[in-house]
């Protein structure tokens, strides 16, 4: 059921914070920005505002949430890189009530 369109391609280029980043195909966005991207952090905690980065890489910790192709709150460890994908750190603070 899963179709892998990147099978003929060894690498893809994504845009991390608007900078092109060429990474192996079929890896997760979290792995891409942690590895070749040297991202350091992947976003800020919306309550405290401090830097955060992935902890578990298996969908548990939710610290890897990033904005992917304009959609916020994506668990980047569960999303596979795709040619031309736009990835941004998530830095929004929660509004105070």
């Amino acid at each position: 059921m899963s179709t892998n369109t990147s099978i003929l391609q060894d690498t893809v280029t994504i845009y991390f914070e608007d900078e092109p980043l060429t990474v192996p195909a079929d890896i997760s966005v979290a792995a891409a920005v942690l590895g070749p991207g040297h991202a350091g952090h992947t976003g800020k905690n919306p309550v405290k505002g401090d830097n955060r980065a992935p902890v578990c890489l298996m969908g548990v910790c939710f610290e890897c949430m990033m904005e992917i192709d304009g959609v916020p709150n994506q668990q980047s460890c569960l999303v596979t890189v795709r040619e031309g994908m736009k990835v941004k750190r998530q830095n929004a603070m929660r509004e105070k009530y």
Partner: protein
Amino acid sequence: MQEQYDLLVIGAGPAGLSAASAAAENGLDVILLDEQELPGGQIYRSVSGRNARKNFLSKEDRKDGMELVGRFNKSGAVYLPKTTVWDAEPGRVLCSTDGTAREIKAQCIVVATGAMERPVPFSGWTLPGVMSAGSADLLYKSAGFVPHGPVVIAGNGPLIPLVTNHLVELGVEVAGVLDTSPIQNKAVSMLHMPLALVDVPFLLKGLKMVVNMFRSRVKQYMGASDIKAEGDGQLNRVTFTHKGETKTIKAATLLVHEGMLPRTHVSRMLKLEHAWDKTQRYWYAKTDQFGRSSRDSIYVVGDGQKVHGVYAAAAKGELAGIDVARRLHVISESAAQRQIKPLKKRLYKALAPRGFVDAFFAPKKGLFDIADDVLVCRCEGVTAGDIRQAVKEGCHDVNEIKLRTRCGMGPCQGRMCGGALAEIAASALGSEVPNVGALNIRPPIRPITVRELRDFPEAQ
């Protein structure tokens, strides 16, 4: 597409793959849902990927994983990857694939959600650069990357020697291993040694791992305590107490590991009966030997039920698959018995060393005696002091504390803080964890969009 099945399996690790394979081979219509893109679970993550030959350091593991995946691919079961379950009840599951929601009906459900590492809060654990030890393994298996060095590895559990050896083999600078295991574990575990001798090769494998770690000449600090991650917006150094002295090691990555526990969000959302394991200090779904839970038609198998390791998980999954085939009358009782007998033998052998392993790596007393200023709930910024204050003000149940403090209300829905919350509250009350309850797990157990809710048929 057909959306009605005999059996729906959640999780494509060793247990889920085995359950789905056994049921499909016996003639059932089976669908298997998994969050990852490729089957294998975490232990065999990306094992069928194009770089597995390079990224699996153990040929034996790769072979075992490929066998499970190969058998599943031939079984006729339907595979639905990149799919997250966010609601379930007997007879049906609601899930999303790439942001599109759907309902899938099934007569039986096998929950095989696997294990995770026990999150234990400490000062600085939210700093980028601090990760779980298992994540380093997953990063390499799935992407062929190693964490930035120098790396410090800290904690007590089976992944400490494994990950240390792997990183050394890959040429990563490991600046130190901070062993937090209590010395009495070694003595207590020996009581379980006689039964463990049923599986000598398993014990030798473990022993070899520990010997290799010593041979690697990585500096080990036995009985390290008061571990702190420090740095300005990024990990820079690790400080700790060793033999009464405060020490500091420069580090770009700190890998922490305090053992494994079952991932129970699905089984708890289903309101299955759970029990508390006193040695390993975790909740697990109560089942019989076939994985049948307290609710009819729901099964829980593998490390998501109780952490018994990969070989036990595969055997338990297969037993559940056969039992479903038997109850839905696609195979006779005698045919079922023929399949069950060798599996029970396999399971007995796989379970034999577990008493020893569980005692050897038991979480130490006082593991959750965390300073008041340490963040417990990473998402909502709730400290251990906030939890203790809520207890002082009269909250005696974790769900009351959650309402008072927001601990467990963030995106991870208590996956990272739920255990620590209960331990800290129980300790503040001079009580035991089962007396302070467990966080209520309600659907949706994953953050979903309003559109996903809207697309779900009953809402229309």
